[in-house]
């Protein structure tokens, strides 16, 4: 058990250490209000990470999610302005996301261009395309019922948290217990073996990209309703945060290995660091350095603890 989940254990240790320091030095960190705000602020990372885990599990990667997020945010606002009720506008944004994910997926699965090339291309193209079309203008003048889905703030936050929790728990369960979840692991471990047992690996790859796009749209819509206007530069650097959370959470970049639970721990650790350092009163100038050091320390921990004998695999372990 400990052997199999050593990254998760390392993470839990790291989280506990940081948590203990914070509990002693800045108990205010653990107030309900702060935890709620942190959860909501990191909700987009979490939801997108759920999709990203699947993509990475199949041995692919998607670095265009930040750009997709920006487009879906703007789309939510534009649909709402056209008169769609907010939930429908959100659903439409999911569709837009799924469409973009579909383009990525088709190029990866059937034209067989490596996913990092495809999503690098769509990342720059979508981001610059959006800039070109909007010229940086924000979406303003949203209908009055847009914010909080027309509910109260507390109710809307509860809906958001509920949806994210259901998604996370459902996907964690589904990945373990449903055939649709197992084929993702099978495809990532060995596409050829997967084919031989009757799985269509290309369809699986296509599907996970579409799902990631849809989840990105979902996250963008839920994020958009927290505000009164929608900037056109949202989601800058989101892809790095999401990938960092997944790989720190023990998802193997080569595919086939990793869990939703580990990723959630990764999101939790990374989301604690920034605000945690503010609570500790660290100067903003050194924050990024400390963040980087903590990531390195967390992943180095399990390597140092259990020195695996298979040195030769160092390179294969990373090929995306």
């Amino acid at each position, binding site marked *: 058990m400990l052997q199999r989940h050593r990254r998760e254990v390392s993470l839990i240790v790291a989280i506990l250490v940081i948590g203990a320091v914070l509990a002693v030095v800045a108990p205010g960190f653990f107030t309900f209000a702060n935890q709620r705000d942190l959860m909501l602020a990191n909700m987009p990372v979490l939801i997108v990470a759920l999709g990203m885990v699947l993509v990475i599990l199949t041995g692919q990667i998607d670095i265009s999610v930040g750009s997709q997020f920006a487009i879906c945010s703007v789309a939510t606002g534009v649909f709402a302005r056209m008169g769609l009720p907010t939930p429908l506008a959100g659903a439409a944004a999911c569709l837009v996301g799924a469409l973009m994910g579909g383009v990525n997926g088709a190029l990866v699965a059937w034209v067989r261009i490596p996913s990092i090339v495809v999503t690098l291309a769509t990342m720059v193209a979508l981001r610059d395309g959006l800039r070109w079309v909007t010229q940086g203008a924000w979406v303003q003048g949203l209908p009055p019922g847009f914010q909080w889905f027309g509910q109260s703030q507390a109710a809307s936050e509860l809906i958001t948290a509920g949806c994210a929790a259901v998604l996370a728990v459902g996907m964690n369960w589904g990945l373990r217990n449903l055939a649709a979840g197992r084929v993702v692991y099978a495809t990532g471990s060995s596409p050829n073996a997967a084919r031989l047992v009757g799985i269509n690996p290309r369809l699986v790859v296509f599907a996970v990209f579409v799902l990631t796009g849809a989840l990105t749209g979902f996250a963008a819509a839920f994020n958009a309703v927290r505000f009164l206007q929608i900037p056109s530069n949202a989601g800058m650097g989101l892809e790095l945060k999401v990938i960092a959370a997944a790989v720190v959470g023990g998802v193997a970049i080569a595919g086939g290995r990793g869990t939703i639970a580990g990723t959630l721990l990764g999101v939790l650790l990374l989301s604690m660091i920034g605000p945690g350092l503010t609570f500790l009163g660290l100067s903003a100038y050194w924050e990024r350095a400390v963040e980087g050091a903590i990531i390195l320390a967390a992943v180095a921990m399990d390597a140092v603890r259990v020195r695996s004998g298979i040195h030769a695999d160092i390179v294969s372990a990373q*090929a995306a």
Partner: protein
Amino acid sequence: MRTSLVLKQRRPWPEICFPNGEWVLALALAVEIAVFSAIGENFFTWSNFFEVVRLSVELGLLALALTPIMITGGIDLSVGSIMGLSAVVFGVLWRDGGLPIAAAVGAALLLGCLAGLLNAVLIAKLNLPPLIVTLGSLSLFRGMAEGITKGAENYSGFPAGFLRLGQGYLWGVVPVQFSVLLVAIAAYWVLLHRSAFGRTLYVVGFSPSGARYAGIPVQRRVALLYFLSGLVASVAAVIYVAHLGQAKSDAGTGYELAAITAVVLGGTSVFGGRGTVWGTVLGLFAISVLQNGLRLAALPSEMTGVLTGVVLVLTIGLGRLRARAQRNEATIDEADSMKNSQLAILCCAVVGGSLIVAGTNIWLMRSLRPADIAPARTAARPGKRPVIAMMPKSKGDPYFISCRAGAEEAAKEAGVDLIWDGPTGLDPAKQNEVVEGWITRGVDAIAVSVENSAGISTVLRKARARGIKVVTWDADAAPDARDFFINQATPEGIGFTLVDEGARLLGGKGEFAIITGPLSAANQNSWMEFMRQRVAAQYPGMKLVAMRPSDDDRDKAFAETQTILKVYPKVKLIVTISAPAVPGSAEAVQQAGRKDVFVIGLSLPNLCKRYVHDGVVQAVVLWNTKDLGYLTVYTAALLVEGRTGQGSLQAGRLGTVEVRGSQVILGKPFIFNKANIDRYDF
């Protein structure tokens, strides 16, 4: 049909010249050159060729360093950050440490080696995936650079002999740093393609365990590559500093992605085992020619990203299709290779899908604000209308977009053609490139909102030497590098106004916090400096307890403000000095229900109207941005016609405008509040 793994005796010439299918890329490059020769001005000239080369040296070095790493199946995301850290340490040692230039360069290179060594140890020794390690060190190194300089420190004033490395020319035409790139290309070519060492890297990339059984010390080989990449990144840093004449913590931001793009465009497989130096060089030039060509054709820089994406998918896609057609292997993986007709349908579907995405986007935005999306003015007409090129600090920033509206208006009135282009994010190196492009293209006047004075002044002087009129607006360059500065407000004026307004609200005493843009933003840093001075001199009762970055991101400003409100419950005033961040801070205060906290800042009236009316935001300090754009273009037009007088000038609808020395004065910073905000629409 099965082909065995026997090496062919005689290879046809295309395979010798393009061993990795680089012909697709070479073709793409040729098409680019042909198109831009037709539509760009002064594109197909020797001087422009060397200009392209000069601007791609730093990126080229990083791409070269990444090529062998990616051939072994690894990746190094930290190269851009190593550049930043080396540049900063070089500046510190030279200016503050008093080391001679050569010793400082040596120390910077040594630091690059150490940074590379850290990556190497973690990856090769501890067996960690390179993606995570370099993702972590990307933050670590950039963070150290920010920590050392406090984001603001900008080292400049390097001796001319050193600057020649990045700005000088050999025999009057060949840029000095080109020689460094050539040496690096030759070295990496020998290393990869003409040495046993290089062959082993391909073996490692194909099969690490196989390589180990063949007796190759995989760990040591891989470690050496990351070490080398640290060294090369610091060489790039030294050239970057010499090129821009300044060392700042944001040096090389985002370069890792551009370098990776060049490498994969060059046909290097991200799975390892495939790739050539030749391909990387072609990929590098495909990107830099595209950027340069778009500039010379006066097309908007957003097209760069879109076209880069298209070129990337097309070249790699075509290369894959060709490789598959050639191999025709019956491996399990390929057994279901599709018929051509299916493939054609699929390609159509993909292209169709992308068109739908693009189309809906455009259509949606049209439905949103039809007036705002007028097509950008493209190439100048052949007539004799003067061409004025105007650059914002960052194209996507709402602040600059509102300046543009005024600029377009003045261009129409004064009868000039306006080119509006600039970096899409804060990037001093990009600003230089754009100005260089305009000099090559030959415009009549250049108007720049300067991100980093030390860096851009050299190019602006060059422009003046070529007889181009230079105006700075929004933020100034060195006084001898421009004819006029359109002074909308001094940093002093902005800093003092913000503090005075804050002190008025707080009654002269209490705690306050600042939310800034990115930590390294030059403007914000100088405003904060004056804010601190004012507080120290005038308001002993006020105390700055926290300063947090927002990276010009509304959502980040929101989260940072939430945290500040909780960590510092006594904070009664948030001063947010980035246009997109003010609504974020306001929303955070509103949602927290903290009616006792004031928010003031520097932003656009349109972004803040609702919060001002709700009483969350008390004051927004700014000037009339439309007038700023208008006055800038009008002054440039007068300059070109030689009609600028002493003491004042006649600027169209603004009437008589005061000129103080070489500064055109727009007016004082203006405070927007509940009473007057509805009168302004920008």
